[in-house]
């Protein structure tokens, strides 16, 4: 989230796409309801299903899954055509005025630079015209130049007429127009809208662009950086945010630094190719100019005394991947016989998919599999799942009992970036050990093996810092201090990442957490809550700066310089983010130098972290286009009405095709219905299958089937049905409902089927089922294909058939 849960109460209009917060984030949803009840905010819910969220929304739009770029694109078009954008903001706080290279083009669904053979773009033309004397981007503040981002955007989205939006999304033109009129009012300075989304936007081959299309709309309306505004992702797991921040992700190092690439010999090579570059004279480019300091401070935290100026601070210790190494790639490599071992530490593979049957095949190709978990999972038991010939599975499998969240301390970071420390409440149950102690212990044993027997490049293993009282049992308190970092000369904890150095005199395990753990103590433990609002929420905006700690630097709303106008006054005086009081910025922790006068001729542009200094309506940071464009899901019942010859994303990564495996995609003739997957309020992915009270509330797996479709098939609620895709099937009960219904898309009638994820062959329900949940894995149906940017699987849009059993 750019903002945070409580901040949603500050909105005038709430757009919810790809999410069902009343069901999946019910306690967070109270802030949506506070906005509605206390300030008369309107809620607009666009979703394939009418859900609990729709039930309290002011408008519900039945949208075809995966078509939200068309919806947001239509809103962008409406705002542009009717001059409803926030003029001062767009002109000064976005790159609308930047001029794009003349060879940039977009024709028939393809941006300039496309290569059919490599299914990728050369993005060189997606950049700015530069002034040869300064190297900075050319700008036209009148926004009239035909090469300006503003004019290019206007042309790009002119195709997204209400009729086109309706044809793609299935939303009736009249309903869409009503929404556009409401959204169009949000470009006024005293109005603010928030967009809230979840994996209903991310889990598509166009996932990155689905989100960007919302962000572009928010920039046009001047809603980024403001309380009550922003782009707000509801994350689905307790600490997925913290673990992403700390880079358990192939493509990053802690704090969203890029993983180094082959060919980058020195830190300087790395920074030159990784850090944002200043493209306007008033841009601070704070991230870019500090990139090397952040990297070096992490290298010092990891490799300690072995990281010296002479060896470029052990830069060559950091592994450099050959190519993408993300989730699906792991299983793709296993299918190719190139992956020997997999460690799943509090994570499952089999039920999570996509294409669970193929993933289980991949697991059986491994030499060894380590599952560290408190409870059995579909991965630990994959070799004895129903229908599997156990003796044929040659994978060596380990199941190691670990502790639960309540048996250890440490922080959880919520969707709003609030890092909240928790106590260890209970001792470990039985023989369970902490994940990090198990990993530390294994690491010590590996290190001993290298010490005694030698082996490939042991240097990083030997050098890795383990400066804990007990290296095999580090405390989370010790690690939290390491993450914050210290000044090696004084031994004092660093107070801000602004003070980090690139000369090896400072450490910071993760620079975005610098400031969380000072010499005075662990700020994540703070508990200044709602019982004393006068002290803890003096502005009344709900920042609660004395509750826990929020990255970066305890800032509660990111990009908050954009919450004030050029003079430093709040766009809306009743809802200030930060304001200039004549000598300093007050309110939230400023995303700007605290005493930099906005009238200073050298004042920085508002978005201090990127090279432009302003929000990017046009961006070359994405590999599938500088403007979001609607593409069909890989499996779709229709051709793209915008450009039928380039219907689906031309750069989505097709794993099976690239590996030479047989095609696992279905067509509409065999699989005529659209399906989507989701979670119920009683469920948290799969672990809740071990919680008896929750199983009682949702005892059996089911699929939701539209009433009209069920009638034509003679299916009634409670009947057993088979839902199948090209990849697998589920056999569960039917729940016939009018919450789903027929839609008209590209002139055709289509149906969508809803499939809750959760059930499988492990858990309380499976234990009492005669088939032991043999065909219960929802992800047996989902396609093994990824978004071009993030390689996120397309869980939310695929084709199935439906039969009564």
């Amino acid at each position, binding site marked *: 989230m750019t903002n945070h849960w409580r901040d949603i109460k500050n909105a005038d209009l709430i757009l919810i796409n790809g999410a069902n917060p009343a069901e999946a984030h019910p306690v967070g949803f109270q802030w949506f309801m506070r906005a509605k009840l206390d300030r008369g905010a309107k809620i607009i819910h666009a979703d394939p299903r009418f859900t609990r969220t729709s039930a309290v929304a002011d408008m519900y739009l039945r949208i075809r899954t995966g078509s939200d770029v068309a919806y947001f694109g239509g809103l962008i078009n409406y705002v542009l055509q009717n001059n409803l954008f926030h003029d001062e903001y767009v002109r000064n706080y976005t790159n609308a005025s930047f001029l794009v290279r003349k060879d940039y083009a977009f024709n028939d669904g393809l941006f300039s630079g496309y290569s059919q053979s490599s299914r990728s773009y050369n993005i060189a033309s997606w950049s700015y015209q530069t002034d040869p004397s300064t190297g900075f981007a050319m700008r036209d503040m009148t926004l009239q130049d035909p090469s300006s981002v503003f004019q290019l955007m206007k042309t790009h989205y002119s195709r997204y007429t209400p009729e086109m939006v309706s044809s793609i999304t299935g939303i009736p033109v009249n309903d869409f127009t009503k929404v556009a009129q409401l959204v169009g009012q949000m470009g006024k300075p005293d109005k603010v809208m928030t967009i809230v989304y979840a994996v209903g936007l991310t889990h598509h081959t166009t996932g990155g662009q689905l989100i960007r299309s919302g962000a572009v709309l928010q920039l046009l309306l001047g809603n980024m950086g403001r309380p009550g505004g922003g782009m707000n992702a*509801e994350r689905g797991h307790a600490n997925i945010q913290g673990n992403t921040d700390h880079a*358990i992700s192939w493509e990053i190092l802690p704090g969203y630094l890029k993983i180094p690439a082959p060919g980058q010999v020195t830190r300087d090579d790395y920074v030159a190719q990784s850090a944002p570059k200043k493209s306007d004279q008033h841009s601070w480019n704070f991230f870019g100019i500090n990139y090397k300091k952040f990297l070096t401070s992490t290298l010092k935290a990891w490799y300690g005394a072995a990281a010296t100026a002479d060896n470029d601070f052990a830069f060559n210790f950091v592994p450099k*991947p050959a190519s993408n190494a993300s989730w699906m790639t792991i299983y793709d490599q296993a299918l190719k016989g190139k992956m020997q071992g997999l460690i799943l*530490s509090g994570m499952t593979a089999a039920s999570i998919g996509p294409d669970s049957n193929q993933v289980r095949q991949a697991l059986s190709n491994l030499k*060894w599999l380590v599952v560290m978990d408190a409870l059995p999972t579909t991965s630990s038991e994959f070799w004895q799942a129903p229908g599997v010939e156990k*003796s044929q599975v040659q994978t060596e499998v380990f199941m190691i009992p670990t502790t639960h969240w309540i048996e250890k301390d440490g922080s959880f970071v919520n969707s709003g970036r609030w890092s909240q420390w928790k106590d260890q409440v209970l001792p470990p149950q039985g023989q369970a050990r902490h994940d990090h102690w198990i990993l530390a212990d294994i*690491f010590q044993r590996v290190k001993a093996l290298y010490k005694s027997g030698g082996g490939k490049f042991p240097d990083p293993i030997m050098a890795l810092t383990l400066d804990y009282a007990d290296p095999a049992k580090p405390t989370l308190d010790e690690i939290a201090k390491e993450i914050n970092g210290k000044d090696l000369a004084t031994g004092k904890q660093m107070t801000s990442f602004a003070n980090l150095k690139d000369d090896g005199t400072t450490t910071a*395990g993760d620079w975005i957490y610098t400031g969380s753990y000072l010499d005075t103590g662990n700020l994540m433990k703070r508990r200044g809550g709602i019982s004393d609002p006068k002290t803890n929420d003096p502005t009344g905006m709900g920042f609660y700066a004395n509750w826990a700690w929020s990255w970066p630097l305890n800032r509660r709303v990111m990009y908050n310089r954009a919450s004030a106008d050029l003079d430093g006054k709040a766009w809306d005086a009743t809802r200030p983010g930060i304001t200039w009081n004549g000598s300093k910025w007050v309110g939230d922790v400023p995303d700007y130098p605290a005493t930099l006068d906005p009238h200073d001729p050298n004042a920085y542009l508002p978005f201090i972290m990127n090279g432009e200094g302003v929000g990017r309506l046009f961006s070359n940071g994405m590999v599938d286009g500088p403007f979001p464009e609607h593409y069909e899901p890989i499996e779709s019942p229709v051709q793209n009405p915008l450009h039928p010859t380039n219907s689906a994303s031309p750069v989505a990564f097709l794993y099976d095709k690239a590996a030479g495996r047989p095609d696992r995609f279905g067509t509409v003739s065999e699989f005529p219905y659209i399906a989507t997957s989701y979670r119920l309020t009683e469920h948290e992915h799969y672990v809740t299958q*071990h919680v008896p009270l929750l199983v009682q509330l949702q005892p059996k797996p089911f699929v939701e089937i539209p009433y009209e479709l069920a009638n034509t098939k003679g299916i009634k609620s409670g009947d057993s049905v088979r839902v199948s895709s090209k990849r697998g099937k589920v056999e569960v009960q039917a729940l016939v409902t009018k919450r789903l219904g027929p839609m008209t898309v590209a002139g055709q009638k289509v149906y969508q089927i809803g499939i809750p994820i959760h059930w499988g062959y492990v858990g309380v329900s499976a234990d009492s089922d005669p088939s032991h949940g043999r065909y219960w894995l929802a992800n047996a149906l989902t396609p093994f294909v990824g978004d071009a940017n993030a390689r996120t699987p397309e869980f939310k849009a695929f084709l199935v058939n439906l039969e009564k059993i």
Partner: protein
Amino acid sequence: MPTVTRRDFLKFGAAGAGAVAFSGLGFDDAVAASTQIKQNLRIAGAKESHSVCPYCAVGCSLVAYTRQNPDGSTQLLQIEGDPDSPVNEGRLCPKGATAMQLAISPRRVESPQYRAPGATAWKSVSWDFVLDKIANNIKASRDASFVTTDGNGNTVNRTEGIAFAGGAAFSSEEGYFATKLMRGLGLVHLEQQARV
């Protein structure tokens, strides 16, 4: 002192109301009885700790009540929403409200389990057995798949044949530590819940 259950409390409430109205039961007696009930609250004298819900990422604060048993074990008495939290203001959903059943479960894995290639059942084994075997596997797979220099002559120092996936219910510090160790081993296939 007798333990008063919720059922008894409700019975008392109904009888008490009736008694006041119809049989003139003394008010003092009712107060004395309710005082006794208060003294028997399940969390009376319990230790109060703070936690955060382990499920979705709203980040609802929890208050957990525990008591030390005479045998030295810790008994978890109650988990409820923290009324002082600016996030949840004391509220919890069905998952958070049943968090005790995740915390304490007879379904937990009791000891390290091992399944040899082709074996048809788990075998309970010692910690040293699994940790040594895993360490040997990691070393063997690392050495077998480690690339020092790629085809273009670039130093890459990566382990291609081992993947690690970390949990979304790790404490942040565990997650950071896992990243550090796995990068230290040269892993490039490093993932968690973010994409799936």
